[in-house]
């Protein structure tokens, strides 16, 4: 049994201008201890996917239309807030893009870590404190015991993200969801945080779902990748295979956007055009208007994901012969 499986999930947002589908028919699987990267442009639906796992979608504007999320055999979609909160923390931990605003500015970091432990049944105050110190040490905060009383504004961006990780992992979750964990940080700090995530995966054995728009981050940490475009998964494969043999034209275009340090002669390419408006998506392949390989058949129907090998699948009628 997979640790997490997302099955044909469709999430829609209601707004004054009508209903928009944020993600459509998304299916993902995550095995224990595995790191899955979900990559795509802003607006491709990757954050919505992450939030819908935890039941953190902004209600009542967003709602799950169909499909379900199963975590360790329990169906999370439609589960009551009361039961769901017991899974948030000990089952699934989550960190966010903005470490600056994701910590509460008026409580000390020690308080914010220990209250999580208290909420999940640790009654002993000294034990909570020890655990908070232990977690802060694990994420690389120096002289952690003396830092418990520090407030978020006294820490740097990288340190705050480390505190967020300490908090998310304090209850030893089996899954960590990291939504753009390094986007708001500078380059050297980014590398430190990614190394930390890899280390902690080794030590604690949790699975990680990394959401990012950065192919560099995927290359660094992920075992497997899912590429999202306009609310759908367009390609999925192990990370080496994806970089070696990208099948979907969108994946190829994305890889063209990664700067390499070895070769400064190659110009960076931008993907022409923009994501289609989620309210008026084309009837066929959503990438067709921006695609260099487009033929008439592309606009006839949405291409389904088709297997290209035992571990590789893509949704394109042009590049997936057969």
């Amino acid at each position, binding site marked *: 049994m997979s640790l997490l499986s997302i099955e044909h999930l469709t999430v829609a947002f209601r707004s004054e201008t009508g209903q928009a589908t944020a993600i459509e028919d998304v299916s993902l699987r995550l095995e224990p201890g595995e790191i899955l990267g979900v990559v795509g442009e802003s607006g491709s639906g990757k954050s919505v996917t992450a939030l819908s796992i*935890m039941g*953190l979608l902004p209600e009542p504007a967003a709602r799950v239309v169909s499909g379900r999320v199963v975590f360790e055999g329990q169906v999370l979609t439609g589960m009551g*807030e009361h039961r769901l*909160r*017991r*899974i*948030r*923390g*000990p089952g699934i*931990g*989550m960190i*966010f893009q*903005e470490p600056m*605003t*994701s*910590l*509460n*500015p*008026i*409580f*000390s970091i020690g308080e914010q870590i220990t*209250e*999580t432990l208290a*909420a*999940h049944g640790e009654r002993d105050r000294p034990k909570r404190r020890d655990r908070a110190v232990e977690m802060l040490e694990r994420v690389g905060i120096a002289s952690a015991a003396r830092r418990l009383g520090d*407030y978020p*504004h*006294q820490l740097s961006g990288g340190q705050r993200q480390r505190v*967020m990780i300490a*908090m*998310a992992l304090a*209850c030893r979750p089996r899954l960590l969801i990291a939504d753009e964990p390094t986007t708001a940080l500078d380059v050297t700090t980014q590398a430190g945080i990614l190394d930390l995530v890899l280390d902690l995966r080794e030590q604690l054995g949790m699975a990680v779902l990394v959401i990012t728009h950065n192919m560099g981050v995927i290359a660094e940490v992920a075992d497997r990748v899912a590429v999202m475009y306009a609310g759908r998964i367009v390609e999925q494969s192990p990370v080496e295979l994806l970089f070696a043999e990208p099948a979907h034209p969108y994946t190829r275009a994305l890889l063209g956007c990664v700067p390499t340090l070895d070769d400064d002669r190659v110009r960076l390419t931008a993907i022409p055009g923009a994501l289609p408006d989620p309210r008026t998506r084309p009837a066929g392949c959503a990438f067709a208007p921006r695609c260099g390989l487009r033929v008439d058949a592309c606009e006839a129907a949405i291409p389904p994901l088709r297997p290209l090998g035992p571990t590789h699948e893509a949704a394109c009628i042009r590049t997936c012969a057969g």
Partner: protein
Amino acid sequence: MGRLLLLRLAGAVPVLLLVSVVSFGLMRLIPGDPSAAIAGLSATPRMVAQIREQLGLDQPLLTQALHWYGGLLQGDLGRSILLGQSVFWSTMQRLPVTMALSAYALAITLVVGIGAGVLAALRQNTWVDQAAMMVAMLGISVPNFFLGLLFIIWFAVGLGWLPTGGYIAFTDSPWGWFQTSTMPAVSLALLNIGLLARITRSTMLEVLRQDYVRTARAKGLPRHLVVGKHALANAMIPITTVVGIIVSLLVSGSVVTETLFSIPGIGQLLTSAVLGRDYPMVQGGLLLVTALLVLVNLGVDMLYAVLDPRIRYER
């Protein structure tokens, strides 16, 4: 922190000076003076002139002012002309009454105002929200003396639950105090409840959208901690500003309310002093009330530092 306190106290000096000048000047601009009131209806103009002389009101304004400020510098606020008592002691006798009433009204305001605001924010755009905001609007728009009159008609005259007016000190009888203070406190509180509920609602809506509230949910905190701790503690910072203003409104509102319910507080004292042209009483009383409000606002400023570590750690 100590430096901030000193700075704020120093800043209060010009405020007090301005209030003293305005109260001195305005009182003299009103026609009539206390001598006629003291002399009574049957007095001859000679007798009135004699009293004026005794009170020093025949002297040039500047001399009177210098005399008053001279006393102030020595810590002497003067004697009330009508009560024959020192201004300081008359004020201090009435102050506990007004403070008890204001504290009661403030307690009602805080509980109902913040409660209604939070509830409205959590149930945004439902009938609960709309009902709470409609009542808040009503509280803001209806003058409190009118509400006071309605209360007297309903609860005192009609239902006979509470006395129509008068005052029993808390130290004499807590139950008596509760009975005599409830209607005045509620009528004082209603305007402020409306204000506070609206501010609380909009602040909470803002705070509930913040990333750290999502973090609190993501780590599995129960709802009462997400709302009551993480969101409300942040919302308290802007709310405190409004509470500082509300305290001033309560004191100024007591002028009308105390008169309406015949409560012997500062409001009633100053109203009768103004009507009787009791110059020293009005001038000294206003100065003392202003000083008190300055202290309250100072307390509010200190509260920010308690509520917000970012201010506490500023150097």
